[in-house]
């Protein structure tokens, strides 16, 4: 077992609780011991970075400090946006001793342990596939995904900017495909898998966001996907919950089930509905479950 500091972020605590339960149930099967961080807050989701960036840096430094205090070498995220926000802050602190000293002084002033021991921020997606993870996964995914055509949807902030993320080629990523295939499913290819789901502006500019959202759903649907999988709960929310609005706007009912990464691997590894919580999705996942039961 490898101990990691587990930062679940806002959505997995609230509207995407199914992401948290499936992650918690899956982790031991992957050899991960989760040390869940309690005294932490939202990473700011890019919004605090845009409204009060100095506060954003300090909030994330505080999360990193509590993560490092667990003694783990890795802080595990399950959201693209948390991943970018934390990695960006971490790079700034690790590469600028003066900045880190100032932030640490401020943390100490309000009673937070300083961020001294370095910690690396990694998304669950990377922890699954790194170090020959596909081989490990083939053993874990005993139930498999036989006959299931899955469209990988990466979203933005796990690929770009690659100088801060850098796990794989941002234009030709391979991690989700590797996972789908190691679990016994068939990975569907389509151009919009690396594009934006529109979520960051879905409230402030709904029409623009829907113009982005329709591309991956439409392309995955045309390519014959039974379901889409994403490593990001924000992408999940727009792909899943806003499909009804796409239907109202276009007259086309895509009826595309959307799975969190931990649910896709989880179902292949034989997790129960009480852990997967597919019932919490807006678009029914029943067709996927039925296909796997045949």
């Amino acid at each position, binding site marked *: 077992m490898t101990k990691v500091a587990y930062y679940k972020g806002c959505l997995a605590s609230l509207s995407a609780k199914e992401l948290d339960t499936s992650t918690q149930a899956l982790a031991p099967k992957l050899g991960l011991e989760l040390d869940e961080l309690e005294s932490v807050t939202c990473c700011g989701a890019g919004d605090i970075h845009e409204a009060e960036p100095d506060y954003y840096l300090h909030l994330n430094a505080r999360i990193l400090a509590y993560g490092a205090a667990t003694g783990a070498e890795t802080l595990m995220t399950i959201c693209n946006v948390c991943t970018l926000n934390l990695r960006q802050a971490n790079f700034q602190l690790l590469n600028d001793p003066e900045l880190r000293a100032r932030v640490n002084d401020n943390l100490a002033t309000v009673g937070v342990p300083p961020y001294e021991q370095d910690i690396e921020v990694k998304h669950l997606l990377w922890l699954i596939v790194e170090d020959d993870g596909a081989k490990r996964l083939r053993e874990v995914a005993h139930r498999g995904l036989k006959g299931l055509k899955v469209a990988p949807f990466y979203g933005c902030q796990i690929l770009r900017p690659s100088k801060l993320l850098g796990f794989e080629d941002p234009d030709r990523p391979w991690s989700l495909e590797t996972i789908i295939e190691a679990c016994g499913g068939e990975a569907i290819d389509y151009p919009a898998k690396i594009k934006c789901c529109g979520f960051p502006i879905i409230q402030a500019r709904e029409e623009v966001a829907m*113009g982005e959202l329709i591309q991956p759903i439409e392309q995955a649907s045309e390519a014959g996907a039974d379901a889409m999988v994403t490593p990001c709960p924000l992408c999940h929310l727009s792909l899943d919950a806003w499909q009804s609005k796409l239907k109202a706007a276009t007259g086309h009912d895509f009826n595309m089930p959307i799975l969190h990464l931990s649910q896709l691997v989880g179902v292949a590894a034989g997790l129960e509905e009480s852990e997967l919580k597919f019932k919490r999705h807006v678009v029914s996942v029943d067709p996927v479950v039925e296909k796997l039961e045949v």
Partner: protein
Amino acid sequence: MQVALKIWRYDPDSGDRDLRDYEVDAPEWVTLLDVLDLIKDQVDGTLAYRKSCRMMICGSCGMRMDGRAVLACKERMRPIVDRGHVPVISAMGNLPIVKDLVVDMDPFWSKIRRMKPWLDPGYDEPSEKERIVSQQQMNVIHKEALCIMCGCCVSECNSMEADPEFFGPAALAKGFRFVGDARDQTAVERLEDYNDEHGIWDCTRCYFCNERCPKGVDPRDAIAKLGAESVKEGIDRDMGAKHAKWFVKSAETTGWLRETELVPKTQGIVSAVKQTKFAIGLAKHGKVPPPGPVHVAADVGESRALRNLVREQGRDGALGIVQGERALARIERTDEGSARRDVPEVTPNEEPPPAEG
């Protein structure tokens, strides 16, 4: 060495599109632009593309290689040939194609012009012989001043695909170049103007612009700086600004996002009520946490104290982003991000370029 390319040709007279194969013998040091020159010289004189300086400073030769916007003069061909790869070359996206690899830059320039890209020092004439601007002051706009206006960032802008009127990454980065300039006296007027429906808050944070920029401008970061300056100046009428401010409020009160209140706080009560039917649909699946005891993070008082503390330290607005740039510049000089290019198999993107207009 033998260099092979596939090029999407477009004939404006007939409207024909065609993916054609080309191969030329070229020295090992050639760039993509050199290869295009050889093709035009030796194989097909009708091939159209823009070029001028050949040294990454004029910004003329933006085009797509395997679907990625690049400067043709910056891309060395040797590693691509060594992999046995034949790249697909096409015109940039989000701009109408004039012929082959040439796009109409008029919409690009009109958006740049819209930003009033000149210094407005007001009536504050310098009392001395010259006005000294410190290095520290220039550092604030250093990255944005590097822009060569090639359009690579605009090519793949996801917001602009959905809203062609979006000012876009190049224009907004140009806007910050003036908002952040110590000599300009019109920052507030500029921010008011850039808070347009198609301005700052229309950016979807897809980060394609940062990924594509061949000069390290990081336009998305420039847009965030404009957002931070707007909030600092109290220009927060846009729903995007209200949305961003609600995250600050959440972080300092409960720690976690107060999700249920996000819609009314962003859109206002009237618009939020119109969303009721949609919200009820989501609530059935537990997607809308019920109002009532909100999820409060442990030790959230620390988060509130931190905000109060940093607000007194004067690094508000864009300075909060600028302070991290020294560190981020350091990682660009390391191998940290370069491993991503070592993927052995590359599938050429043969998706045709978008239709004209």
